[in-house]
């Protein structure tokens, strides 16, 4: 009784058919270049952005000095020099930290972590304690999560470095700096009314989403779509094993 949709049901295309479909799509070069440029700007890679503008023949309307300032701030954070980072933020966007108490707290906590890291080397916990009492303790009662984070961080002082639990170890991981740097970068971008998410980030998410959706689909045809490889290879031909 029912009319079926024009696409012949039951005929599942082979992986070669899918490859051909993929090959037939012609993404525009101009688009690719815009995606790359956008990433270099948003991600804060000033020298690469400048070179790319030249090599690809693109004009960037975004102020290069702003990328550079964001880059400097993030670099300070990566280095663990939070004091300089905060000074630079205050120079660049004087009201940013005041308007984002969570970000400010995250920076101060990172600074405390860096002090604790040093105290472990120097066997002197006084600077870390003083800093915590002076800067973090007064802020902690504002929000319950601040208090929790502070307690968690202070626990670092209670254990010898080689007996830290995994969540505590994580605090000392360089990834912590990276996270805070990303937060700062995005907050600055948002305050400048630039979308803090790079186009390529959205694109990658869309790619992951469509694949997941196809796998969950009611349609046999969609479920049968083979995994499509991106063709990413490291220079040595394969990806390095996940690092420990």
């Amino acid at each position: 009784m029912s009319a079926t949709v024009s696409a012949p049901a039951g005929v599942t295309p082979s992986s070669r058919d899918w490859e051909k479909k993929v090959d037939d799509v012609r993404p525009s070069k101009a688009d690719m270049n815009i995606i790359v440029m956008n990433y270099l700007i948003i991600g804060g890679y000033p020298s690469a952005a400048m070179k790319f503008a030249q090599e690809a023949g693109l004009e960037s309307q975004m102020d290069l000095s702003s990328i550079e300032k964001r880059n400097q701030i993030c670099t300070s954070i990566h280095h663990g020099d939070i004091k300089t980072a905060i000074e630079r933020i205050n120079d660049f966007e004087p009201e940013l930290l005041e308007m984002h108490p969570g970000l400010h707290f995250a920076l101060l906590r990172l600074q405390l972590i860096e002090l604790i890291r040093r105290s472990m080397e120097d066997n002197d916990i006084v600077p870390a304690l003083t800093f915590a009492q002076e800067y973090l303790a007064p802020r902690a009662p504002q929000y319950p999560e601040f208090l929790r984070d502070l307690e968690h961080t202070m626990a670092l002082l209670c254990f010898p470095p080689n007996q830290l639990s995994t969540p505590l170890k994580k605090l000392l991981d360089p990834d912590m700096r990276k996270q805070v740097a990303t937060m700062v970068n995005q907050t600055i971008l948002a305050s400048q009314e630039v979308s803090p998410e790079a186009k390529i980030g959205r694109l990658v998410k869309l790619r992951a989403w469509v694949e997941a959706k196809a796998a969950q689909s009611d349609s046999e045809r969609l479920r049968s779509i083979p995994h499509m490889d991106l063709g990413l290879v490291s220079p040595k031909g394969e990806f390095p094993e996940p690092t420990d």
Partner: protein
Amino acid sequence: MASSSSYHTVAASGTSTVVPRSQGSSWASIVSGQPSRPRISSTASTGLRNQRNGSHANLSDLGSQSGRYYNTAFSNSHNAQSKLLRLPVSLPSYLEDSLYAEKLDAVRDLSWGSAIPSRTSSYTSVGLQAAQSRGTGLKLDVKDTVPSPDDDLPTPLPTKWNDRDRSDGIEVSQDGLNVQFSVTGPSKVNEYDSASVRADYFIPRSCGVYYFEVAIMNKSREGLISIGFCGADVHLNRLPGWEPNSWGYHGDDGKSFCCSGMGKAYGPQFNSKDVIGCGINFRTHTAFFTRNGQMLGTAFRDIPNDRTLFPAVGMKKPGEHIRVNFGQEEFSFDIDGYMKAERKMALQEISDSQVESLCPPLDEASLIQSLISSYLQHDGFVETAKAFAQDLQAEQNALSSDGKSKPLELMEDENAIHRQNIRSAILEGDIDQALELTRKYYPDVLSLNEQINFRIRCRKFIEMMRQSAETTNGRKKAPSTSKRRAFDAYGDEEDEDVDMDGDAQSDMDVDEPAPVAVPDFDMLGKVLEYGRQLQEDFKDKPELQEEMEQVFSLFAYSDPMTSPMAHLLSEEGRGPVAEALNSAILVSLGKSSKAPLERLVQQTTVLLRELGEEGGPASFVNIHHWIHNLDFLPNS
């Protein structure tokens, strides 16, 4: 053009109304990805709105409106013409971001070629300007356009009631929009029978949501009118909803009927002048109705997703008369808002999706970095690749200040450097250098890729013409160092002879040979000689002759730079040549001609299309808008 019938006469779609070409170009802007669009945004719909607000009497107006709404302007397309003719010219605004709209655009791009800017090439606005976004003057991209296979053509949207798909006892107006229960039909309808009609086309699932409205122009005392949708083979002497595979909202009792004679209480009864809307949501497999702009809620669930469904109306009593709005006029319900909410849900879902499974063990940040650096390598942006790698390395070093520095792989690839040198030579107009490098490092590439060989040789010819024209005119000192390098052989000594004042141009218009042209004879001779050689080398390639003639026509003008063919000389033509050669070299090296980033876009496009075809959430997502336009949405 006087109207004698009670209904307006409208030219059948795509047959008699001729829309001038200039008219056609306006629809490019209709659906071009402008961030802020009017609710209905086309010349066609302006006309249609006038029709609604103004009188209904102007027949010639109606004719041309209908002509614009259905695309009659496709007359210059060569393929699948009749099918293209039935595609809508403008879309109801709620469909503008749908997959359906994207497919429509794709077809337009192909059938119009470069006559109009397409949506896909015009969204370079986002704070960045792409110098290369405009195409080359030369129409040499034969390889770059893939004709859309016939089955990829979008199906037309419903546009009117189908006079050939109705039961007796119902009368469809000539414009196909009005339907009346007929008292005087040839066969008097059985008292137990009703009369229904289907729309001309089924509803494409790639719309994501489909919506139409029916105005109750007049009703019988009972108001036995059913508005809904049904399959292609459902009997039309019953009201939609009563038969299997049909669904309807009935005006006499306000009940909703789902494939059965037993209705469920749903909404109010219909009154004269009510506007009843019907929407199908292919994501949720549900349908809803609206009344005078108010949402009445979900009427049906679990609508099977393997049927083709047509809008349908049915009626049972004399005096009943409805008029449909398939989107040619503004809707009374805010379907745009409904659509926006739907899209937002899909977009939110995408934003929340996890990318770790895409390319393990890479996390999101590393995956993106790999995509970027492989793209830079692949496309020969050597300097950028280096700078980017250094930036990343610096970041890595900073992060591991504890001495556990993990050195990043610097992808030093000498092929990338060769490719970059070839690329920049072409971008600077130094074709000789590019040819020399290519022959040296990739000796087979040019002989194996005749088309690319031809493109490069043509470009060389064009660069010679450029040089010749620039020296002759003494205008425009070479903006880049390239020109000097390209023509070292005969360029330099001319400079002083040619350094002349502004009279140059007026001199060129005079019949007698301009004195300044004398020193250029030598050069023009060389250009001519090169042209002859080019012709000789490719003379037995009929498919290339047209392009060649186009290029040679530059000879016809004393000043090619201001001639009608000047676009051929544009520096922007260099980019595509460089890309084509780069791709050919990559293929010869056994590498994919596409960088992983491009693969990602290609795969996403295909998967999105396939998913959207089923009417799922993917049909609300337009990849171009997703990448580019979302910036303008304030933190949605």
